[in-house]
C-alpha cells in the first residue's frame, strides 16, 4: 500500500503552466482555474503568450504561459512568482526560472528534455537541473509524452492527436497535487469537444492517467491543500477584461434603449472586444469591421449622429490614428466611447504586453482645445462597470469618452458575480424635447451643459453640424472670435461638470497613514495586495486609486493634502504623476515607475514602499 503523501496546508498558491505556443497551455490553465473557482477558491489568472502565432518550436521566444493564483482568501492579482511550474519543454523551464519562488515545485516532461530541445532552449549541457542550479527545488520528472502515448495506444489516434493530449496529463498531475476532483474538468472537456467524441475521450483518459501518476508518486512528493474562500453567494463565472467591456456596453444599450454600434479594426490586445460583439447579433448589436482605425471611429461617429450608441475599440497605435475624428466628436458633441486597451509602446512596441503609457495620448492627443472624459478600469471584472458608466456619461453628457484598459486587464480573468441588472441605473439620452420651431442645435441642458440630441429621421429637427466652429446657440458656422472663445470655455466646462456625477475618490487602508499610495487603472490589484501585506506587518499605509481621470473626483485634492508622503505608481514614466502636478502644484509627489511590458510585482512595490516609510 502506498504511503500517504505529506500534505502542506496553504493560504494561497500560484501555478504557472508553460509550454510551446502550440502545447495547449491556455486551455490547460483555463480548465484548472475554472475547476478551482468551482471548488470555492478565489482566483485571478493571467495568460502570457508570444506575439507570434507559432514562434519557432522549442525556443524561448515560443514559450506560452498561463498563471493561476488561487487562495483561501481574496486574491487581487495573478501572483508575482509561482509555487508550481509545469514546464512542457526545456525552453519553458529556462524562460520561467526568474518567476519561481524559492523551493517551488517544478513538473517537467522529461521526455522533451532531449539534446535537440535542450540546445534550442540554450542549455549547454544535458542536465538543466545542474546547469541552472535547481537542487533546492522540488522537481517532479514525469515521463509525460511516454505515458500519454501509453494511455492512448489502443485508441487508434494519429500521432499529432496523441501529442496534443499531453497537456491533459500535466493537468491531471496538478489536480492531484492540489487534491482537486477532476470531474469538473472532465465535464468541461466533454463539452468543449462535444463534436469530437474520440478526442474528448482521449483527453479525459490522459487527464485521469496524469492524476493516477500523482497517486503513485505520492510517497515521495508533498502535495498542497487550500481551503475554499469565503465568497459572497451568487451565480459566478470567470470573466476577462475584454469580454467584460463588451458586456458592459450591452447592458448600457439595454438601459439606454439605444442600439449598440461598434466600429472597430482588429488590433492586439483589443480584438476580442470586436470578436465578442460580432457574435452578438442575437442581441441586435451592429458591428462593423472597418478598413482601418480611422474608418472604425468614423463609422461609430456616424452611427451616433444617426441615433445609435457608437463605440470603437482599439489599442495605442489605433488611438493615434483616431485623434482627428475624436476632435470631430468633441466639436459635434455626440456620444462616443473609445476603448483603448493599452499595450507596450511607442509604435508597434510590445503588442501582447501591458503598459499604461497612453494616458497622455488620451488626455491630450488631439489638435486644439479638445477636452473629453478619460476613465480607466482597474480589474478584469470591473471593466464591465466602467464600460457601462463610460457609455452612461457619453450619452447623458453628449461627449466622447476614452475608456482605458490594458493588456493585463484584457486577458486576465477573475470570478465575476453576475450582477442583477437592477443594480445599474437607467441611462437617459438627452433627446431634444422643445418643439421643433423653438429649438436650436447648441442649446444646452443647464445642469450638464450637454446639447440635445435630435435624431435624423425625426420630422422638423433637420440640422447641420460639423467640425467647423459653431455659433454657441444656433449651431451655424461661426468664425467670430468672441464666439470661439465662448465655445472653447463651454466645451471645457461641460467636461468639468462631469465631476458632479461621479463618485468621490476612496481611501483604502489607514486614513491617517504615513504613506499614501496613488495609482490608476490596471495596477489596482497589485497596489491593494501590497497595501494589505504592509498593513499585516503593522505599517500605516493607504491607497487612493483613480478610475476617473478627466475630470478627477471632486475630493481628489482634499485626499492628497491629508498625507505627508505620497507615491504615484504607474506603468509608464510618470504621466499621471505629472497630470496631478499640473492640477495640484503644491502637492509633493514621489513616483514609482516601471516600463517593462509587465505588471508590477507585489514584492517590488512593498520593497519600495518600505524604503519610503523608512526615510
Amino acid at each position, binding site marked *: 500500500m502506498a504511503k500517504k503523501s505529506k500534505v502542506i496546508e496553504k493560504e494561497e498558491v500560484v501555478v504557472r503552466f508553460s509550454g510551446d505556443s502550440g502545447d495547449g497551455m491556455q486551455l490547460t490553465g483555463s480548465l484548472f482555474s*475554472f475547476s478551482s*473557482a*468551482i471548488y470555492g477558491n478565489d482566483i485571478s489568472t493571467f495568460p502570457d503568450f508570444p506575439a507570434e502565432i507559432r514562434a519557432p518550436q522549442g525556443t524561448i521566444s515560443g514559450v506560452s504561459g498561463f498563471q493561476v493564483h488561487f487562495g483561501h482568501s481574496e486574491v487581487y492579482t495573478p501572483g508575482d512568482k509561482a509555487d508550481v511550474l509545469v514546464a512542457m519543454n526545456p525552453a519553458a523551464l529556462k524562460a520561467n526560472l526568474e518567476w519561481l519562488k524559492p523551493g517551488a515545485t517544478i513538473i517537467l516532461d522529461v521526455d522533451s528534455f532531449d539534446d535537440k530541445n535542450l540546445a534550442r532552449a540554450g542549455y549547454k549541457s544535458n542536465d538543466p537541473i545542474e546547469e541552472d542550479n535547481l537542487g533546492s527545488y522540488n522537481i517532479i520528472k514525469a515521463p509525460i509524452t511516454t505515458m500519454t502515448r501509453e494511455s492512448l495506444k489502443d485508441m487508434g489516434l494519429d500521432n499529432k492527436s496523441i501529442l496534443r493530449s499531453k497537456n491533459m496529463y500535466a493537468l491531471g498531475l496538478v489536480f492531484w497535487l492540489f487534491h482537486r476532483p477532476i470531474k469538473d474538468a472532465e465535464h*468541461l472537456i466533454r463539452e468543449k469537444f462535444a463534436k469530437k467524441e474520440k478526442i474528448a475521450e482521449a483527453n479525459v483518459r490522459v487527464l485521469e492517467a496524469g492524476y493516477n501518476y500523482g497517486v503513485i508518486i505520492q510517497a515521495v512528493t508533498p502535495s498542497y491543500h487550500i481551503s475554499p474562500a469565503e*465568497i*459572497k*453567494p*451568487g*451565480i*459566478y*463565472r*470567470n470573466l476577462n477584461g475584454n469580454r467584460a467591456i463588451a*458586456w458592459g456596453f*450591452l*447592458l448600457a444599450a*439595454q438601459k439606454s434603449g439605444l*442600439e449598440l*454600434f461598434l*466600429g472597430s479594426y482588429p488590433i492586439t490586445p483589443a480584438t476580442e472586444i470586436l470578436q465578442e460583439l460580432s457574435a*452578438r*447579433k*442575437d*442581441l*441586435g448589436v*451592429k458591428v*462593423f469591421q*472597418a*478598413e482601418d482605425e480611422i*474608418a472604425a471611429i*468614423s463609422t461609430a*461617429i*456616424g*452611427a*451616433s*449622429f*444617426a*441615433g*445609435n450608441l*457608437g463605440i470603437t475599440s482599439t489599442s495605442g497605435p489605433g488611438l493615434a490614428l483616431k485623434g*482627428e*475624428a475624436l476632435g*470631430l466628436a468633441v466639436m*459635434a458633441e455626440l456620444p462616443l466611447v473609445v476603448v483603448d486597451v493599452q499595450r507596450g509602446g511607442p509604435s508597434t512596441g510590445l503588442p501582447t504586453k501591458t503598459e499604461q503609457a497612453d494616458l497622455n495620448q488620451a488626455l491630450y492627443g488631439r489638435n486644439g482645445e479638445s477636452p473629453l472624459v478619460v476613465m480607466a478600469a482597474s480589474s478584469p471584472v470591473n471593466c464591465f462597470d466602467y464600460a457601462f458608466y463610460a457609455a452612461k456619461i457619453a450619452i447623458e453628457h453628449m461627449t466622447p469618452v476614452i475608456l482605458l484598459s490594458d493588456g493585463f486587464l484584457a486577458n486576465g480573468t477573475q470570478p465575476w458575480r*453576475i450582477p442583477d*441588472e437592477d443594480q445599474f441605473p437607467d441611462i437617459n439620452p438627452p433627446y431634444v424635447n422643445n418643439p421643433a420651431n423653438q429649438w436650436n442645435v447648441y442649446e444646452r441642458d443647464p445642469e450638464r451643459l450637454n446639447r440635445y440630441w435630435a*435624431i*435624423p*429621421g*425625426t*420630422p*422638423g429637427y*433637420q*440640422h*447641420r*453640424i*460639423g*467640425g*467647423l466652429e459653431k455659433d454657441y446657440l444656433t449651431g*451655424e*458656422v461661426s468664425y467670430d472670435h468672441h464666439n470661439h472663445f465662448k465655445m472653447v470655455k463651454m466645451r471645457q466646462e461641460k467636461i468639468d461638470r462631469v465631476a458632479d456625477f461621479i463618485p468621490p475618490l476612496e481611501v483604502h487602508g489607514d486614513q491617517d497613514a504615513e504613506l499614501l499610495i496613488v495609482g490608476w487603472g490596471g495596477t489596482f490589484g497589485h497596489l491593494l495586495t501590497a497595501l494589505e501585506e504592509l498593513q499585516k506587518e503593522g505599517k500605516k499605509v493607504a491607497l487612493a486609486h483613480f478610475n476617473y481621470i478627466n475630470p478627477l473626483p471632486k475630493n481628489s485634492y482634499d485626499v492628497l493634502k491629508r498625507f505627508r508622503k505620497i507615491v504615484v505608481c504607474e506603468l509608464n514614466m510618470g504621466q499621471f504623476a505629472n497630470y496631478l502636478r499640473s492640477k495640484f502644484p503644491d502637492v509633493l509627489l514621489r513616483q514609482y515607475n516601471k516600463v517593462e511590458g509587465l505588471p508590477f510585482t507585489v514584492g517590488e512595490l512593498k520593497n519600495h514602499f518600505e524604503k519610503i516609510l523608512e526615510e
Partner: protein
Amino acid sequence: MSDNKKLAFLEYKSDQNVRWCPGCGDHAILNSLQKTMAELKIPNDQIAVISGIGCSSRLPYYMSTYGFHTIHGRASAIASGVKLANPKLSVWQITGDGDALAIGGNHFIHVIRRNIDINIILFNNQIYGLTKGQYSPTSKRGFISKTSPFGTIEYPFRPGELTIGARGYFFARTIDKEIKLSVEVMKAASKHKGTSIVEVLQNCVIYNDNTHREITDKKFKDDRTIVLEHGKPMIFGKNRNKGLVLDGTRLKVVTIGEGGITENDILVHDAHCEDPTIHLKLADMEYPEFPVALGVIRDAEAPVYDQCFIEQMDKIKKESKIKSFRDLVTSGDVWEVK
C-alpha cells in the same frame, strides 16, 4: 411641400447664404441635387447629407435636410455608420477629387466594395480649391500647379475605373452646368440599391478654370461627349451620325453611312450587365480619341450591404437561444456559490 413643381426644390434649401465663389460649378450641382430630391419627393427629414472637407463639402450647410460636415476623407466611413444606424435614411455623400480619391481613397474603395446604399456625388475639378491651387489625384499628367510648377510626373486616377476596380455596381458621369442630365443621373443613383458613384465634371473658376472646357463647351460638346442611355445605341455627334462599335476587344468610333456602317452596327448600351468589361471601356474613354461618356454607365444589381446586415441579424435573432443580456451572462460555464 410646394405645390408648384418647378419651385419644389426650394424646400430643400437651407436659410444659409451659399458661400462658393461666383461662377463656381458647385452652385449648379447644388441646384441639381435639390431638384433631384424634389422630383423624388424624399421628405427632408429622411435625408442625411454627409461630407468631408473641401469646397464641395460645404454643401450640407445649404440643404434643409439633416447634414454632417465631417473631416477630410472620412465621409464615406461616417456615411456608412449613418446608413447602418438608420437604414431608412436616404444617405448622400458629397465629396471632391482630393477628399474622395487622395486622403479618403481607402474609404472610397471600401464603401464601394461593401456596396452600402449611399449615393456619392464626386465633384471632380482636378484641383485642390480650398487650399488654393495644388494638383489633385485627378489632375492630368504634366499639370502645372503651385505644387507642381514643372508639371506633375504622376498619372491621375480615373474615378470610373477606380469604381469598377473596387467592384462598383453604379457609375454615372455628368457635367456641373448640365442640370437636366445631372438630375437624371442623380435620380438613377438614388434609385439604385447599393453604392452609387456620380462623377460630376466640375469647374473651379478660380484655380482651374476651363479644365473640362474642351469637352463641356457648348460649341463642341455634342461631338466630344456621348450621353449613354440603357437600351439605346451609342450614337453621338451634332449630326447624330457617329457611334461606337467593338473592333476586336477595343472600342472604336465610326461614322454611320461611311464604309457600310449602319445604325444596326452600333453597340447598344447595357447598363445593367453584371460584367463590367464594356462599362470600364466606356468609363475610360478620353477625348480626343473618344467622346467622353456621360449618363449612367453602369447600373447593375448586387447584394446590398445594409440589407444583408439586417437580414443576417433578423435570422440570428430568431435562431439564437440568447434573447436577452441575462441569457448571455448566465450561459456557459457558470457556477453557484451558496
